[in-house]
C-alpha cells in the first residue's frame, strides 16, 4: 500500500509539472503579444518595447517558464521602479487589465466556484446514485421508466438553456427566489443557500442522469455476478447482499468518475456562473478570454488542471483502500 501510494503521489507530481509547462507553452505560442497587454489604450510602440524588456517577455521561453515556476514558489516582483508590483507566493502572474495579482483574483473567485461545486456535487451524487439504485431495483417497472424518461430530458438540455429556464421560472415568473447574489456562507448561510440553489439545481439536472445510468448499469451488472448469488444462497438478508455485495462493487467505478467530475467542476462552472452572474473562476476565465488577459488565463487553467490532477490522485488512493486487488500485488 505504501509503495502504491508513493508511486501515485510521485506520478501526480510529475503530472502537475507537465500541466504547468503545457499551459505555459500554449499561452506563449499564442499570437497575442503579452507586452501589448500591459498598457492598454495608453500603448505606444516604444512603451510596448520598453515593457517587453522590463517584464522579461523578450527572454527565451525556458527562462520565462523558470521565472514563472520561481514565482509560484517564492512570489515575484513584476517590473521595476515606480511601476513595480509584487505578488506574494504562490504568484501565478500579474493581470495588467485587472491591475491585480492573478493569485488574488483566483483567491477571490474560488470560494464562489467551490460553493457551487460542493453543493452541486453533493446533490447530483445523492440524486444520481439514489435514483440509479431505485431504477435498478425496480428495473422495467414504472419507477425505472419514469426515472429514465426524466433523465433523458435532463441530459438533453444545454446547460445555459437550463440555467436560463430555472432563472425564468423561479426568479422572474414565480419570484420564489431573489436574483442570485453571492454572500459568504459564514456571513449569511441562508443567503448563501438562496443564491446558490439554482446553480446547484442546474448542475444536478445536467450531471445526475449520467450517474443514474452508471449506478443502474453497475448494479444490474453486479447482481448477475456469481458471488452475489452465493451471498443470497448463504441466506443473507436482501439488504445485506445489496450493501456488502452489490453496492460496493457497483459504486467503485462511480467514485472514480465522480472524483474527476468534481475536479473539473472546481475549475469553474462557466455557463452556470455566467447565467447567474456569480463571480466565480469560470467567469474570471471567460472575462480573461475576451480581454486576452494571458496571465489570468494561464493562472486559471493551471489551477483547474491542478484540481483535476489532485482529485485524480485522491480517487486513486481511494481505489487502493477499497479494492484489495489494487492494494495487494500491484
Amino acid at each position, binding site marked *: 500500500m505504501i509503495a502504491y501510494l508513493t508511486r501515485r503521489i510521485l506520478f501526480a507530481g510529475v503530472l502537475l509539472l507537465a500541466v504547468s509547462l503545457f499551459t505555459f507553452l500554449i499561452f506563449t505560442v499564442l499570437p497575442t503579444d503579452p507586452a501589448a497587454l500591459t498598457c492598454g489604450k495608453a500603448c505606444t510602440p516604444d512603451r510596448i518595447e520598453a515593457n517587453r524588456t522590463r517584464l522579461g517577455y523578450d527572454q527565451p521561453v525556458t527562462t520565462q517558464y523558470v521565472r514563472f515556476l520561481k514565482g509560484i514558489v517564492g512570489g515575484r516582483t513584476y517590473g521595476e521602479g515606480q511601476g513595480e508590483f509584487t505578488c506574494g507566493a504562490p504568484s501565478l502572474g500579474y493581470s495588467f487589465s485587472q491591475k491585480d495579482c492573478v493569485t488574488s483574483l483566483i483567491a477571490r473567485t474560488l470560494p464562489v466556484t467551490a460553493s457551487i461545486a460542493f453543493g452541486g456535487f453533493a446533490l447530483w451524487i445523492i440524486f444520481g446514485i439514489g435514483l440509479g439504485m431505485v431504477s435498478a431495483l425496480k428495473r422495467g417497472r414504472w419507477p425505472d421508466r419514469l426515472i429514465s424518461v426524466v433523465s433523458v430530458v435532463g441530459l438533453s438540455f444545454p446547460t445555459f438553456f437550463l440555467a436560463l429556464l430555472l432563472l425564468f421560472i423561479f426568479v422572474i415568473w414565480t419570484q420564489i427566489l431573489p436574483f442570485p447574489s453571492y454572500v459568504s456562507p459564514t456571513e449569511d448561510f441562508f443567503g448563501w443557500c438562496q443564491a446558490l440553489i439554482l446553480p446547484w439545481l442546474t448542475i444536478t439536472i445536467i450531471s445526475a442522469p449520467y450517474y443514474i445510468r452508471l449506478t443502474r448499469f453497475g448494479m444490474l451488472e453486479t447482481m448477475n455476478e456469481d*458471488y452475489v448469488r452465493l451471498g443470497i*444462497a448463504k441466506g*443473507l438478508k436482501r439488504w445485506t447482499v445489496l450493501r456488502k455485495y452489490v453496492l460496493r462493487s457497483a459504486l467503485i467505478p462511480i467514485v472514480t468518475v465522480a472524483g474527476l467530475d468534481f475536479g473539473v467542476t472546481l475549475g469553474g462552472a462557466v455557463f452556470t456562473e455566467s447565467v447567474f452572474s456569480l463571480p466565480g473562476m469560470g467567469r474570471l476565465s471567460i472575462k480573461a478570454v475576451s480581454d486576452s488577459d494571458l496571465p489570468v488565463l494561464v493562472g486559471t487553467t493551471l489551477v483547474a488542471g491542478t484540481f483535476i490532477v489532485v482529485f485524480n490522485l485522491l480517487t486513486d488512493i481511494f481505489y487502493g483502500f477499497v479494492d484489495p486487488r489494487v492494494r495487494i500485488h500491484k
Partner: protein
Amino acid sequence: MSELVLQVKDLKVAFSTVDGVVQAVNGISFDVRKGQTLGIVGESGSGKSVTASAIMGLTNRKSADMSGSILLGGLDVLTAQEREIRALRGREAAMVFQDPMSALNPYYTVGKQIAEAYEVHHPKTSKKERRLIALDMLAKVGLPKPSECIDEYPHQFSGGMRQRIVIAIALVNNPRLLIADEPTTALDVTVQAQILDLMMNLQQEFGSAIILITHDLGVVAEVADEVMVMYAGQTMESSKVQTLFDTPSHPYTRGLLGSVRSLDNSERGALHTIAGNPPSMISLPGGCPFHPRCEFSASMNGLCATVQPTLRVLPATGSESACHLNDDQLLSLGLGVNHD
C-alpha cells in the same frame, strides 16, 4: 430407508423471453435422502442449473413461471415466503457454484466470508468465535496455513483453493443438503479429483446429502449413489449408479455411455458425441423430446414423434425410464456397452 431431505414433485420452470416461453424444466420429480449422493447428468441446456436454483429459491418468481412442489426443511420452496426460505438457505441446503473464480466476493477476506455465512444461522456468536469457526473450516477443507489464509482476499488464491473456500462456506452451517453445480468443471484435471475427494470426505464427516450436477459420467460413476439423466428439462432415466452403467435403460443414456467410452481421457465426459443437437427449449419437438436424435424412433411407427412417454419402473432392474420401447428392448440396450 433414511429420512427424506428433499422431495421434488412435478417441478416445472418456464421463463418468458422475447423469443417465446423457455420451458427449462418440464415436470421432474426426485427424492434425496440423508447421506445420499444424487448425480444429475445431461447435456448443456437440459435444465440442471435451473433445477438447482429453484431448490435454493434463487429463481426470480417474477420472471419465471413455476409449478409443482419442492419440499425442503418442512416447507414448499415454491410457495414459502422469502423470509422463510432465507432460514433454509445455508442450513437446510447450501450451494457450490461452477466457477470458483467468480463465486467469492472480491472485497472481503475469505475468513469474513466464511464467518458471515456462519453468522446467518448463529447470530448470537461473537466475532472471535466466528473467526475460530472460519479457521476450523479452512483447515477442514485442506487449506495450508489457515491462520494466514483467513485474512487474505479471494484473488490471492488459485481456482482449486477458491473452490475449497466455497465449499467451506457451504458446509459451515452443517447443511443437510449440499447442491454442487458442476463444482469441478472449471478446474484443472488434477485438482478436480482432489475437490471430489474432499467433498466425499466431508460428506462422511458432516453427513450431508449431495446433489452433484455434472456433464461428466465418470464423476457420477465415482461418487454418486443414484443418477438422474435429464434431457430437455425432463427425466429420461433414473437409477442406481451401478445399474445405470451395467444396464442403461434408455436410448439417451445408452448414447451418453457410448460417448464416454469412445473418448480418450483428455476429453473424458464430454457428452456431445451423440449425433444431433439438444432441442430448442422454446419449441420442443412433440412426443419424446429425444426422438429427432434417437436411432429407435424410426421403427416405432411415429409413436415417438406424437406421444410423450411417461416414466415407468422396470421391474428387472428397478430403474425408471421414459421410453416407448418395451422392457426387453430396454434391457437389451446395455448389452452393447463394453466394460473395460
